[in-house]
Every structure is written in C-alpha cells, then in structure tokens.
C-alpha cells in the first residue's frame, strides 16, 4: 500500500470570486483521517477533488500514487476509490440490492455471480442484508445513508471518501457507523469530512482542520486538544472576555479564550480546541500542532 494516498500540493480552487481552496498542501495515508471545518471551509471541495469529480484550478494532486489529470490514471484511481458524497442520490424505483448492483456494474464487475456476492457482502457490512429487496423509496433516511455507505465499500477501495456520513443519523446509527468504519477490512485510507467532533475523537488517528480554504491544523486529536491547553476555564458567571462561552448543566459557565488571572482552568477537549481555532481563524489568528 502507498505511504501517501492523497497528496495535495498548493491546491487552489475558485468559484467566481470565492477561493474555496487557497494553496492547500497535505498528504494523507492509510487509517482514518478526519476533516473538520465550518460550513464553506472548503471540505466538500477537497473531497470532490479527491473523488476526481472536480479539477483544481492550480497546484498538483496525486491520488493512490497516480495523476488524476491523466485519463488512464484517473480510471485506475476510480477503480480503487469509494465515495460517499455529502448528498448521495438514489434510484427510488430500484431495490437496495438493485441499486448497489448497478453501482457494482459501474465499478466494472461484469461477472454476475461474483458481483452479486460482493453486493450481498457490502449490504451485510452496512447492516442492510434484511432489507436488500426493499425499494429504496421505502427505506428510512438512516438506511439510505447506510446504503450510500454500502455502495462506497464495493471492491474494498484503497481510498474511502466519506463526506458527512453521519448527517441525519440518530445516536444509535452514528455509533453503528463508527463500528462499521473502525472494522473495515484491509485498513484503507479513509478521509472523513464531518461537523461532528465526537466522530473525529472516536474514529480518527489524525485530524485536519480547514477554514477559509486553508489548513489551520494537521495532527492527532490529542495534539488538537492540546492547542487549547490553558485557554479553557470554568466560572460561576459568564465572562465577556471569552471568545466563546456557554452555561453547562451544573449551572456554571465554560469559557474558551484568553483566561483572566486566577481563572479555574480545565482540561480542553477537541470541541474546545476546534471552536477556539475556528473562532481564532475568524480573528485572523493561526494555530499549529
């Protein structure tokens, strides 16, 4: 397996006057990497470039050690790619089995018997074996999300791109999703774009924070939490000097920012660090691992 599955160097993507990505440079290898960032940060643009459905305006991209601008390489990348887009679509008249079977054909699985075995396998992994013959339009939102996940798992991809896979899932389904991702066979490179910091903490060996089209942080979840060390405190009353503060269940207030002298500091979480970083980004401040 390649050391670096996604390799971006100075990648730029503009939509009109908006710089969705502004000189992004990073390398992603095997294991689960989380991509955190606020709405409009450039996460989905990065995912779409990695999925070969969008070409950058500048910089270089290498995926699975191949060049996606070369037509033959692009096809080879797509053979080893699994992609769950942010808003997956479905053929409503198809059954769950027929839909995944159709995607399997588009993944060049022409032999009917082995294809059907593979379709049954990924439906079982996604916990949809019992509803394989149910029409897509009759599936619940959570089941459809898992169906989209199942199609991304076809042929054991070397690179799995999951764009907000837990959006709209209830807590039980989210936990089940974590179980699915952590038990994937052959340990593919997984890039998980999400707003849910708990998913990142639970699943990711590495986290990348993107804001304003640039990478604000790249490191482990522990290192991300550590960036907020000494900048999170609790107090009986709200403090206007905090970048962010909220009232907790016990009636006290948790603050993020530059603490006043003598403040009661507390252990920061990934949430704290992320909120501070995004707030800091808005203020023009940079943070590093």
């Amino acid at each position, binding site marked *: 397996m390649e050391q670096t599955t996604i390799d971006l160097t100075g990648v730029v993507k503009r939509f009109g006057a908006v710089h969705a990505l502004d000189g992004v440079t990073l390398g992603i290898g095997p294991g689960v990497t989380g991509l955190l960032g606020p709405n409009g940060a450039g996460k989905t643009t990065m995912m779409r470039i990695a999925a070969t459905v969008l070409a950058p305006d500048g910089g270089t991209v290498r995926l699975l050690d191949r060049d996606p601008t070369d037509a033959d390489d692009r096809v080879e990348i797509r053979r080893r790619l699994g992609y769950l887009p942010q808003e997956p679509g479905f053929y*409503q008249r198809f059954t769950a089995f027929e839909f995944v079977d159709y995607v399997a*054909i588009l993944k060049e699985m022409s032999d009917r018997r082995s294809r059907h075995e593979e379709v049954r396998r990924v439906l079982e992994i996604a916990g949809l074996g019992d509803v394989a013959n149910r029409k897509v339009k009759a599936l619940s939102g959570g089941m459809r999300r898992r169906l989209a996940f199942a199609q991304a798992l076809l042929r054991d991809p070397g690179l799995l791109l999951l764009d907000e896979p837990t959006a709209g899932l209830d807590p039980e389904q989210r936990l089940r999703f974590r179980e699915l991702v952590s038990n994937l066979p052959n340990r593919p490179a997984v890039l998980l774009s999400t707003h849910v910091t708990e998913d990142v903490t639970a699943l990711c060996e590495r986290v990348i924070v993107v804001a304003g089209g640039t990478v604000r942080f790249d490191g482990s979840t522990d290192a991300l939490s550590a960036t907020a060390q000494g900048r999170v405190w609790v107090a009986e009353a709200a403090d206007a000097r905090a970048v962010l503060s909220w009232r907790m269940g016990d009636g006290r207030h948790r603050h993020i920012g530059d603490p006043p002298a003598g403040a009661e500091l507390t252990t920061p979480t990934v949430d704290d660090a992320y909120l501070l970083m995004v707030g800091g980004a808005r203020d023009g401040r940079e943070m590093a691992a």
Partner: protein
Amino acid sequence: MSGSADRSRGSVVPALARVEGWQLVSHPVFLAGVGVAVLGCAMFVRAIVAGTAVSWEENGWTAAIGVLLLGILTLVATNLAALRDRRSNTTEQHTSLPILRPVRTSGLLAATLWPAGVAALLMAAVAGVGATQDLAPSGFEVVHLVEIVVSVLLLGAIGIALAVWVPNPFVAPVVAWVLLFVTPGETPAAWHSLIPWQTLGAIDLAAWHLAYLCGLTAVVALIALAKTSRPRTIAAPMVVAIAVVVASAAVLLDGACPAEGLCRF
C-alpha cells in the same frame, strides 16, 4: 489503456443492458404501452379468428397503432432512464466510478432490445394466431414484423439521444406527441415511404424500408454516443449508417409509387 481494461469495459455493456432492460420493461410508462399494444393486437386477432380480417393493410391497423404507441412510450421510458442520474442526483457519485459515459449510453442503447423483444413477441403472437387459424390476412410477412420491431428500437434510441443532447425530461413527451400526431395526410406520396412507421406492401420495398430503418436506428444511436465518444470512434460507423439510409431512401423514393401498396402503419 490496457487491453484487459478495454475487455472489462466491453463486458460491462451486456451487464448494463440486462439491468437497464429489466428496468425499462418494468417501467410504468412502458407497461402502459404494452397495455395499449395488447389491446390493439387483440382487436386484430379477434378479426382474424372471426374471419373478417381481409388483409394486413385493411385490418392490421389496430395492432400497428398499438405497437406504434408502445414504441412512442418506449421513447419516453428510455429518455427517463437516460436522465435518471440527473433526476436522482446521482451524477456526482457515478462520475467517481470507472465506467465512462459512452459505455453507459451503449448499455442503455443495447437495453432497448428488451422493449423491442416485447413488441416482437406481440407481433409473433398475432402472426401465430393467424397461422393456427389458417385465416391469416394477406400482405402480412415476416419482414413487416421485423420492421415494426426495429421501429421500436429506433424510437428507444431517439429517447436516449434526446436525453444526451437535450437533457430535459419535458422534451421527450413533446417529441412523442409530435411523432404521434404529425401524419403525412391522406394523399399518398412517395416520400411517405420514408416515414419510419410505414409498412410497404411489396416485399422488396419492405426489405429496403427495413434497411432504411436499420440505418436510421444506427444513425440515431451514434448521435447519442457522439457527445461523449471520441470522434474517430464514431466517424466510420456513422458514414456507413448514413450511406445505408441514403441508398435505401433513394430506392424507396424511386420505387414506392402510391399505387404499389404504400400503407401507413
């Protein structure tokens, strides 16, 4: 591209055709067409069994109109199938897959054999009833049956070509409506033989009309493929298909004098 990859993509077309074909013939729009076609064929069969069917030209129009409607609704169904990604918001996720658009279009074009097969079964049933009753009306030959089946293929290909070039779901129903209601008028004329859903009584002319239909179907299919294929892949077959259309059209225009049994179908 490696040879094995090319072979792999080639073998995807039959797999796609099987899946798309099943989806086409189980589509409600197509099933409505089957209902109308069965009704039209049943009326003709009834006339055959009752011994009142004199000739294909005189009495076969109910079956012919029924199958024409089947073809028209096949056009709508193939158009909807070709626009499925757009309607289902699956364009992005399917773009990330290795099979390219021309292969998918080829699979869908091959899938039109399924509706054409249904039309063939219907027409064969009509012919079969005629044969078993020994009351087969005159003027009904195998070539006419094949012409009708190829007409369904042509209409299916038109639906796909429309989706490729004008990807709007409202276009196909309008085109279907126009095809259904634009008729050449009551006064016979030689150019009427160029209308695809026209059967010609004389066997030799019917054979030329069949060649014309096959050429036309190939031209439409290649037009559907042209948008996303390499021009050099399309050019040679397109030249051959156009040559067949032009040559057969010339013979038809020369030979299909109204007195020689031109029959609007």
